[in-house]
């Protein structure tokens, strides 16, 4: 009997090793270990053995059974692994095939720039405020030190809607509304839409966007203005950006400056982008005119402040190298998708 068990065991072992797929293995399991299997039959024959022989023989059969079970399990695992391997191999994809697109949208390039600016100035403690686009002559001009028939009105061609109503030519009107409602220290920016009667061409649009900044506190100087604008320029144009002041004139600031930033294209050496100047004019700024402070009930002998107005469209077109400002308002999807 012992020999027979060994024979079965050896035959089974070979058969398992030679088996080619899971079906075959299952058949082998049934053949040897099933209810009518060969090893099971051996167990059933135990009854014919003497009680002395039984334990040893029983152990032998069980050992053989366990061994076969292990072999079957191992073989199954092996096969599964192989099958997985085969499947994975068969499933190789062409990674250069097109992706299944995730349809996303996005904001307009002008607002990418506005959002960046808002982030920069909010981090410096500026509140973001809003103002009406249809302004009164009073807020757009009078309070900003530009009385009626003042030559400075020629600096901006204005759209009029009524006797004393106009489309704001600058976000500066928001300065006045802010100073009327808040007390120093004041730190606000006002991004928004402004209007000037400029014929449409590659660099002019009758509708464009500005960001006005205003700081009023005790002891504010041109150096504070420059510091804030340097921060701004370095965030927008890179950490090497330099800021230059050129004396200029705006009715609502005194002293007034035009502010240039070193050309980010050539680093200030002079190139086509900056027309050889090495500098690009980006905004106008200055110390809030004492008359403006006074008209808002702020004592210019106690407080001083600075204001600046940044052209958002200009920064957008230079940042993205957009050659024609009209593209911003045409809204071709292929254009918008680039931002």
């Amino acid at each position, binding site marked *: 009997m012992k020999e027979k068990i060994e024979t079965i065991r050896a035959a089974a072992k070979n058969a398992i090793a030679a088996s080619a797929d899971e079906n075959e293995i299952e058949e082998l399991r049934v053949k040897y270990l099933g209810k009518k299997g060969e090893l099971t039959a051996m167990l059933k024959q135990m009854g014919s053995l003497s009680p002395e022989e039984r334990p040893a023989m029983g152990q032998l059969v069980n050992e053989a059974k366990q061994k076969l079970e292990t072999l079957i399990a191992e073989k199954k695992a092996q096969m599964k692994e192989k099958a997985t391997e085969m499947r994975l191999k068969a499933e190789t994809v062409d990674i250069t095939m097109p992706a299944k697109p995730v349809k996303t949208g996005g904001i307009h390039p002008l607002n990418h720039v506005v959002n960046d600016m808002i982030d920069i100035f909010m981090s410096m403690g500026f509140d973001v405020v809003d103002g009406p686009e249809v302004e009164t002559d009073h807020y757009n001009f009078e309070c900003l030190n530009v009385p009626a028939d003042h030559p400075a009105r020629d600096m901006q061609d204005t759209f009029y809607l009524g006797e004393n109503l106009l489309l704001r030519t600058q976000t500066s009107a928001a300065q006045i509304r802010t100073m009327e409602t808040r007390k120093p220290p004041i730190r606000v920016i006002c991004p928004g839409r402004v209007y000037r009667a400029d014929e449409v061409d590659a660099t002019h649009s009758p509708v464009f966007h500005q960001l006005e900044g205003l700081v009023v506190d005790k002891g504010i100087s041109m150096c504070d203005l420059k510091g804030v604008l340097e921060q701004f320029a370095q965030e927008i144009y890179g950490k090497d950006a330099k800021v230059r002041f050129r004396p200029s004139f705006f009715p609502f600031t005194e002293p*007034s400056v035009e502010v240039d930033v070193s050309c980010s294209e050539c680093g200030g050496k002079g190139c086509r982008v900056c027309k050889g100047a090495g500098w690009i004019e980006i905004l106008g700024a200055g110390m809030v005119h004492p008359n403006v402070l006074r008209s808002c009930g702020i004592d210019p002998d106690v407080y001083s402040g600075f204001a600046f107005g940044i052209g958002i469209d200009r920064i957008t077109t230079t940042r993205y190298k957009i050659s024609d400002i009209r593209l911003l308002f045409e809204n071709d999807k292929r254009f918008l998708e680039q931002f």
Partner: protein
Amino acid sequence: MKISLKALKYYVDINVPVEELCDRMVMAGFEIEEIEKQGDNIKNVVAAKILKITPHGNSDHLQICQMDVGKGEPVQIVTGAQNISEGDYVPAALDDSYLPNGAHIVAGKLRGEESNGMLCSGDELGLTEDDYEGAAVNGILILKGNPVPGTDMREVLGLDDYIIDFKITANRPDCNCFLGVAKEISVVLGTEFKAPKPEYKTVGQNISDYISVEVRNFDLCPRYIGRVVKNLRIKESPEWMKKAITASGMRPINNIVDITNFVMLETGQPMHAFNYNDIAGKKIIVRNAAEGETITTLDGTDHNLTPDMLVIADGERPSCLAGIMGGKESEIESDTTDLFLESAKFRRDNIRHTGRTLGIRTEASGRYERGIDIINVEYAMERALQLIYDLDAGDIIDGAIDLNNGLPEERIINVTTDKIKELIGVDVPDEKIISILNSLYLPTTANGKELTVRVPSIRDDVEGRADLAEEVMRIYGCDHIVGKPMRGDVVRGRKLPERIKCDKIKDFMSAAGAREIVTYSFISSSAVDSLLLPENDERRKQIKIINPLGDEYSTMRTQLTTSMLTVLSTNINRKITNGRFYEISKRFIPKQLPITEQPDEIPTMSVGIYGDDEDFFTLKGIIEGIMRLSGAHTQYERISEPYLHPGRQALVKANNTVAAVFGEVHPSVAASYGIDSRVYVAEIKLDVLLGINKRKTVYKPLPKFPAVERDFAMLCDAELPVGDIEKAIAKGAGRLLERLELFDVYSGSQIPDGKKSVAYSVWLRSANSTLTDKEIDAVNSAIIKNLESAGAELRK
């Protein structure tokens, strides 16, 4: 203002190259529009002598010239001109030369004969008779004075000057003249400024024997000076004066007119010359025009005057529009013998107003509008008389009529050096501040740190310490300003709640695959017609721009849909197959028309979508997303907007307030935008959504007990909205309803006419226990009962 560099050098020493001068002026607040080098556009053109002329064998009109161009060997040039003779000196453009009109001249052959260049006419060199006598002759320019052959023509013509175009800011009217700019240059370069000191002799007699002057409105004419010059000797002006005038963009006419123009360019003070013999009653009256009066100005235009306009009248009628333009009748002509000369100050806003009303702007009115100095009025008159005397243009009668209502005192500003430095933020040495102010002709005395600055009337722009700070800053140098980091109390910047909400909506729209657009706030007056709105529709009450750039941009929009349709049309017509767009902007709703107060500016959003994957319900999905984001409880109702498909449009109420309208665009509206496919638009009242206080999010526990799913298939009238069915199910299911989902709507075969089959899956779940069969059956019956009363019968 354009000024010749040579003219400037008459008043100030300029010891640096022109480029450096301009750079330094820019940093002192004088932007340079352009530096034009005269003759820069003429290259390789030389003076040449005609040695020999022979006829051209193959042409009747061509001649062959042997030219001495200073190269030793003669050069052959063929010309078509006939006005030349052997021995003439003429300009010759050599091989590889350039002319002002851009022409590039190269050697070649003319009808078989070699020609190594071209002989030039005055016109070809960009010259007029004013530049060079004989320049206007039809033919080759014959040069005077036998220039050495080979001499560069620019040298021959004296074209070695630069014309600098200074951009003078509105606060510096005193710099709209040679003297003003020269004075600034002298400060910037630290060189001497030399103003002419007028001296002349009169021929005696007294002006009062010739004329009387009356100023009736000193408010509009604070100062008026008149002089008389007799026995005019009208002729051409000297070369230097003509060149200075031409460089500044004016045309020389004759010595008298040129002197008035030159003095204006030099001093900034406009002058006017009247023909004395045309002055009726020998009386000059400065007064407002009378109702119905007219004048014909120098340019031949007739103007109707109104009483707010100031005129210079004689005894009978207006003979000059004060400060703007003279009258035709009293014009100086070549045979004029006697002259009444005016130098005056007029109020700038009045000149501006009159000029705008009549549509006239002249060199003079431009200067008056910006403001001229009342003291300078006298200096300019003296200077004009000096020039008349020096150029022997006439005999000056003794005595001046000088009418004014008192001249202004100097403005005194008391300020400390510290107050000036505080604004700039730079520690400028006190002595430096004082010397800068003095150099700018702002006489300053110091008592320690206390300054007393005497501001002459010509620097009317200097009102207080801020202005003084600017003067110091621009001369001391802006590069001394060193940026300081933001300081003060640490504060947090905030956005307005509306902006935060809009940002969230934009984030949602980005996730929904939509692109933000930006369009103009004004539209054409007829845009709203394309929406087929009835005559009385509120959206037709639009604000018109009084001075629009054209009808296309004439009307403030009361809706964003027309702008959206234009963008959709642009994209569709460019063969872009699909798109989702949105805009967040403002509607302008007038409180009255015409408007007398600021209109309501209402934040509004528009959405526009098109393409094969889009329909009414994809747009509804976007709308629902926005509503959910805003915390709104929404309801949909049918409406009838004329621009939308009658069966595919809906009104959305957010918490019972109208918040949006959306739907498929009516095909005839789409067609008017050149769109022949289906497009879908929405207009959302952001003001309503922004006003909703979104409830705070509170966590809801995840379910512990299983859900039960039941399907309901029913038959109902085809017209019954599924919304009613959903309400019925919800009512029947009560608090156990977790979710319901429409999975089939069908009509057709096996369904009776006028009916439809609708099927819902319903999920029921209790938060506290597993639902028992008994509970489920009860809910089932309740749902069926409610469906039946809604008109839907369960399919057997």
